């Protein structure tokens, strides 16, 4: 065989071809590696450019940037407590609603629904994840805000708003726009992500574990509570963090319904702001360098916080994947 090859292919040609293959391999491999490294570089550059662009704001205002509430383009004094608070509160409202709902959906899909129903229902919930976020914003502004103003806000003001201690959180004029509305819309947006993760990890529970519990006479609910949930706990928390990361950085949906207010308000019914909404609304209109730098500094804060939250999410999900792989 090898003798035949040597007869038909003259030696120099074969050598040339081998050399060509080496060059081709080197070039192709280097290109592929450069492309892969670009992913790392892009992330690093994003963080660096935010830090660099926002640095003057951090330097000018110091820690007060995170603690003060004045946001005044005229006197050029900027402190970002209101948008930071708004981002945290709207995301918290979103998670309070989205986590139980997503858990319910995952339980329904894995334990309750017959197979013919589970597929279409799961696909429908995933459709929610596909809807562009600006559609949520428009629907929020034109449909959900009036609905909240007419039916929900007055009721909350009259019932929860009169309670001691937590009353101030829920009292205020029924404007419809505000942090509660934004939080609810965020919740709808993250439900498909969180429920998809929960459903996927519930499916990773080894069948013998579930079957053993059923054989001992456990009800379906007890299997979920005592077997499925303990086994998947880290990954479930990972899924929740994934949703939180999405909620923190979401822009268009909340920009429409938050009201873009820079006054600090304790009430969830009052207009507020969020980091992403402030950047989206004001960046192109920023008329001084320090204004723009303050917004970029906010972008840096948002980037670091979401990065940390998403990294935690990913680590927790990896842990279950490794456990299941063993």
């Amino acid at each position, binding site marked *: 065989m090898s003798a035949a090859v040597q007869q038909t292919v003259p030696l120099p040609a074969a050598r040339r071809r081998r050399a060509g293959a*080496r060059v*081709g*391999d080197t070039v192709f491999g280097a290109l*592929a*590696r450069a*492309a*892969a490294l*670009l*992913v*790392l570089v*892009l*992330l690093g*550059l*994003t963080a660096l*450019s935010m830090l*660099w*662009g926002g640095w003057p704001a951090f330097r000018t205002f110091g820690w007060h940037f995170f603690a003060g509430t004045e946001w005044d383009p005229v006197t050029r004094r900027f402190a970002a407590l209101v948008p930071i608070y708004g981002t945290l509160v709207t995301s918290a409202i979103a998670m309070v609603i989205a986590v139980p709902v997503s*858990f*319910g*959906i995952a*339980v*329904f899909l894995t*334990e*309750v629904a017959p197979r013919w129903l589970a597929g279409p229902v799961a*696909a*429908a*919930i995933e*459709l929610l994840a*596909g809807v*562009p976020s*600006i*559609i*949520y914003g*428009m*629907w929020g*502004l*034109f*449909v959900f805000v009036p609905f909240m103003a007419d039916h929900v806000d007055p009721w909350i003001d009259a019932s929860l708003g009169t309670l001691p201690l937590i009353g101030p959180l829920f009292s205020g004029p029924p404007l419809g726009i505000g942090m509660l509305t934004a939080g609810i819309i965020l919740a*709808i947006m993250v*439900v498909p992500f969180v429920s998809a993760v929960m459903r996927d990890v519930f499916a990773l529970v080894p069948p013998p574990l579930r079957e053993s519990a059923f054989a001992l006479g456990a*009800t*379906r*609910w007890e299997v*979920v509570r005592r077997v499925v949930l303990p086994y998947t706990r880290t990954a479930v928390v990972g899924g929740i963090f*994934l949703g939180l*990361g999405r909620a*923190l*950085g979401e*822009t*268009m949906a909340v920009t429409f319904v938050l009201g873009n207010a820079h006054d600090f308000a304790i009430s969830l019914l009052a207009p507020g702001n969020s980091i*992403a909404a402030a*950047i989206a609304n004001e*960046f*192109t209109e920023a008329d001084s360098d320090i204004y723009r730098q303050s*917004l970029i500094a906010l972008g840096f804060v*948002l980037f670091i916080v*979401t990065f940390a939250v*998403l*990294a935690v999410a*990913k680590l927790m999900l990896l842990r279950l994947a490794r456990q299941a792989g063993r």
Partner: protein
Amino acid sequence: MAYSRALHRRRQATNVIGLGVATLATLFGLVWLVWILGTTLYKGAGAIDMRLFTQMTPPPGEDGGLLNAIVGSTVMIVLAVAFGTPVGVMAGTWLAEYAHGRAIAEAIRFINDILLSAPSIVIGLFVYALVVQPSGHFSGWAGAVALAMLLLPVVVRTSDETMRLIPGTLREAALALGAPKWRMVTSVIWPAARTGILTGILLAIARISGETAPLLFTALNNQYWTANPGNPLANLPVVIFQFALSPYDQWHRLAWAGALLMTVLVLMLSVSARAALGRRK
């Protein structure tokens, strides 16, 4: 242990309540889907006519169409795919074919997954600093770069995953025939992974077609007809954003029409891509 009727009944009741609440939660989720899509369909269908595709975006308070926005969006999406997919597929190729469990590959996968969910508005700020500031003006190029950055992680991930599913025997067969590695990748691995990679690109297009935040300070908007990415470029999402927040009824109608167009396109892309992925599994 004695059989306890009360305990049995309590456990059954908890079971029924727990699963019942789970079912209600699912209905709760579906109600929003129907409400949101129903509104978009109802308001959008009433506003759609042929002028959308033949006329420019109008000045305030007048009737018009969305032609320049549709063209601008198309130009930027095509450019983003042209920038993003070669890099994404090559990166996926390196992860799947060259990295072989190196720590750096795991790090890249990890970072890539985070980029997948990173706030798109921050990407907009980054591209503003990268392209808009140095060039001195907003442009379609900047918008396309921002969209490409959002498309990249989706393509990297799907192509990496698809290529890793290809059986090792195919690689061995190609190498045993004397093919150099790059020939093996381009003539055996890529064709075998074609469906998966194309599906990933479709998913990525679905994702960037609806993105608004990164375009606000990159492509901006343009009231006039242009398909030249050197200028600020009109695009559907930003037009919808500006028109929806305006006080004019005609602009609202156009915003709903654009919203319906965009939603239908995005959902069709993502549903067909997911269906293709599902079949493969």
